[in-house]
């Protein structure tokens, strides 16, 4: 059951990922990216991380991708005209991708610990929202504050950047 869910959502996620790379219209790219993020959220749920799955749908598929679509419409981007491919960049990119994929598969297949079946969770089921909250505020208090400052400075930066004249 879990295996079937994994294969279904992983295949769907990768197919929509391919269409992000291949399609020419930026709006269809953004919509395929939304679909592939939703499949990714389903994969998170198959890993018993329901809270992360919900955040993925709310923040990524909801807020961030709406921002992307908003900017695409604001700039009124049309379908990308096909230009001559830059031969050197394409061949170099393909080489880097092939090297990355081959090294990754070698590392994953050579380590026997990665072939383990899913271990059983012990004892009574704990709520993962509660456990993430406990971990966040017990061991990661300072990083949490720093992320708050980061978000504030990003907001101020956006306001400064979007003023009509930069001084």
């Amino acid at each position, binding site marked *: 059951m879990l295996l079937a869910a994994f294969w279904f959502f992983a295949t769907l996620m990768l197919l929509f*990922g391919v269409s992000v790379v291949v399609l020419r219209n930026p709006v269809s790219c953004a919509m395929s990216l939304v679909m592939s993020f939703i499949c*990714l959220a389903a994969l998170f749920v198959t890993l018993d991380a329901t809270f992360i799955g919900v955040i993925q749908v709310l923040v990524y598929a909801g807020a961030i991708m709406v921002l992307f679509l908003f900017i695409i419409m604001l700039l009124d981007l049309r379908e990308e005209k096909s230009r001559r491919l830059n031969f050197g960049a394409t061949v170099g990119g393909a080489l880097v991708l092939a090297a990355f994929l081959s090294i990754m598969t070698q590392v994953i297949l050579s380590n026997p610990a990665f072939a383990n079946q899913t271990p059983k969770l*012990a004892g009574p089921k704990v709520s993962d929202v509660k456990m*993430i909250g406990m971990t966040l505020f017990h061991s990661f208090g300072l990083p949490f504050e720093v992320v708050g400052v980061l978000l504030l400075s*990003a907001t101020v930066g956006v306001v400064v950047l979007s003023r009509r004249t930069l001084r």
Partner: protein
Amino acid sequence: MPTLANYLIASGLFFALGLGAVMLRRSIIVIFMGLEMMLNAANLSLVAFSRYGLVSGHQNFDAQVLVFFIISVAAAEVAVGLAIIVSLYRARQTTHVEDLDTLKF
């Protein structure tokens, strides 16, 4: 049951797709979408490791808190990046990376 290797390979392929979008596409918005795909591939392997490396019988919640941080940093990054793209478009009327060659050697 799927194994850890299944999840890691799915995550690696998704990362490779994001890298492909960054290197093959020439529209700056789609390049930015490729960056998002790479961040999400990293999130997938973090959540997989948290499920398969149990700490006293439960998932390792440190990994899920790290995913939470990655998502909030990505949100800040998207806001700043899209503001930069908008002001670039105001200055140059293009989002094609080959038309932006002022800093090119």
